[in-house]
């Protein structure tokens, strides 16, 4: 965020804040960090202990590293299959979201066509009707279309429910692009498709990236629709696999910890690497909107 650079309240305030007050603030922030991180570290430590160590010393660091948990958890929880399923669903859903939302967002932002206002109204209204509310008819509809237990089917349904927000975000990106570029291309004799694909899409890339990052987290972590529509174990995604593993086997704590680390750590690492983009995208939307 550019807010770091602006001479707003922060720098001056912290300059005038007393040493004691600043000490208090850091203590409070320390508490915030510890209450977030400690449970996460606890899972990581637990995943490296054997059962005996876990119960003898539930709090502390592992005394020896027991990587066997990871091998066992991977096998017993069937994480290989689940990971594959999650990748299939996520890739299919994200592709659909981008391919369907981007052209529509451009059209809604730039073109005049009959029914455009009705479509905008529908998009806003659809954001207020999350799929949880229509779970029952959605299940029946998917069943009648033969989409139960279909990973691609579920991906398309997830995409459909994500289209309103995606179009909305992308539309504001297209609205912000300068009109001259489009006019110049048109005067050079560029056709409609050329303008869209050669001129507008490259400029809208930051918007597309924002949509992809957000929908990735959403789709990758999605549980409700997967729970509703993927009933057979061999097509289930990671979140469902975790729940099943937890419920089918009793008290394999160290293995649960390992499975949780395997499935959660990659996303946390991706987030930490991209967190600046992530957070600035989020705040730009909120502060402007």
């Amino acid at each position, binding site marked *: 965020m550019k*807010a770091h650079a602006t*001479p*707003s*309240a922060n720098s*001056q*305030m*912290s300059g005038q*804040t007393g040493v004691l*007050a600043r000490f208090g*603030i*850091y203590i*409070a*922030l320390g508490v*915030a*960090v510890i209450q*977030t*991180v400690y*449970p996460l570290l606890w899972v990581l430590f*637990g995943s490296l202990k054997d059962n005996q160590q876990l119960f003898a010393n*539930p709090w502390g660091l592992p005394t020896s590293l027991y990587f066997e948990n990871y091998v066992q958890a991977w096998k017993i929880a069937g994480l290989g299959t689940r990971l594959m399923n999650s990748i299939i669903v996520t890739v299919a859903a994200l592709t659909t979201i981008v391919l369907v939302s981007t*052209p*529509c967002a451009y*059209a*809604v932002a730039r*073109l*005049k*066509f009959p029914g*455009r206002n009705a*479509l905008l109204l529908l998009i806003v209204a659809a954001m*207020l*009707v*999350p*799929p949880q*509310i*229509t*779970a029952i008819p959605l299940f*029946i*509809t998917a069943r009648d279309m033969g989409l139960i237990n279909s990973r691609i089917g579920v991906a*398309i349904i997830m995409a*459909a429910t994500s*289209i*309103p927000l995606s179009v909305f975000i992308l539309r504001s990106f297209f*609205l*912000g692009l*300068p*009109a001259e570029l489009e006019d110049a291309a048109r005067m050079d004799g560029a056709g409609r498709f050329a303008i869209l694909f050669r001129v507008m899409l490259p400029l809208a890339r930051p918007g597309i990236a924002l949509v992809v990052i957000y929908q990735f987290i959403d789709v990758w*972590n999605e*549980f*409700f629709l997967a*729970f509703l529509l993927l009933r057979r174990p061999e097509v289930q995604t990671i*979140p469902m696999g975790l729940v099943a593993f*937890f419920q089918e086997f009793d008290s394999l*704590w160290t293995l649960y910890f390992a499975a*949780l680390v395997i499935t*959660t750590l990659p996303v*946390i690492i991706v*987030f930490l690497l991209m*967190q600046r983009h992530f957070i600035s995208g989020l705040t730009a939307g*909120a*502060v402007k909107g």
Partner: protein
Amino acid sequence: MIKTASRKRPQGSIADAGFGLLLCLPAIVLLGLFVVWPFAYGFWISLHAWDGFSKMTWNGGANYLRLFRDRIFLIAIENNVIFLVLTLVLKNVLGIALALLLNGVARGRAFVRAVTFIPVTMSFVAVGLLWSWVYNPVFGLLNEGLDVFGLGALKRSWLGDANIAIYSIVAVEVWKWVGFHAVLYLAGLQTIPADYLEAAKLDGANAWHRLVRITLPLLSPIIFINVILGVSGAFVRNFDIVYVLTKGGPNHSTEVVLTAMIAEAFQNTSMGYAAAMGYALFLIVGLVSIGLIALMRARRVAL
């Protein structure tokens, strides 16, 4: 930036009917099939007695009337309200508090902000499983921690005690989202000009007055966004966390409308009644949202 230098085109100024419709066709088809159609079809289903397979039998509004006498549904509504009020207050108060703390320091801000945002990126399932171990009565982190601090008397079966289980779930929901709300509030705080606060300080306003009279009113658009996000989160996105932590138990004490609805549909195979629950939920969320928007509008005019 280019944006300010160049002319902004008013929305939709190029008349191109065929091309516009063509570009939107896939979106219209998907929205029609999986958003609009289920919404309409669900209402039709909710007016019938139906097991999902045999012929539907029209029963008028009987499903809706049944809601008022259904003990589990009423518990679920009560829990949704508890969940809504508590998560809304706690997420926003703690979110603002964390944002104010972050705004007060320069060093370490990005680090703390990133760390407290980590739970936001985790799935409800992962968060739920993590906390079911924190709450574990035998070797869970929370009870062990109370022992260490000499507070053993407070030890509980956090998810097994019907009187407190719903509050334990609320705590998890708040834990997951505080970092998210803090990020939004921090961005809002950084748009407040320092002069305002300086001027107030010179006029002798203390820190509390500056917060209540200047900072919070100027934050009201951000508060509005956070509240609306919180409302839909509390009503509609709480299935995962409840399902993973308690499945609505013990003895339905943590049932929310969505868990009751899914149980009705797939354990009791009464699709019509379950669909009616979905509609009732939609109606309540809609009314609460409209009420809040009206309230915030009125407040903002008054400010």
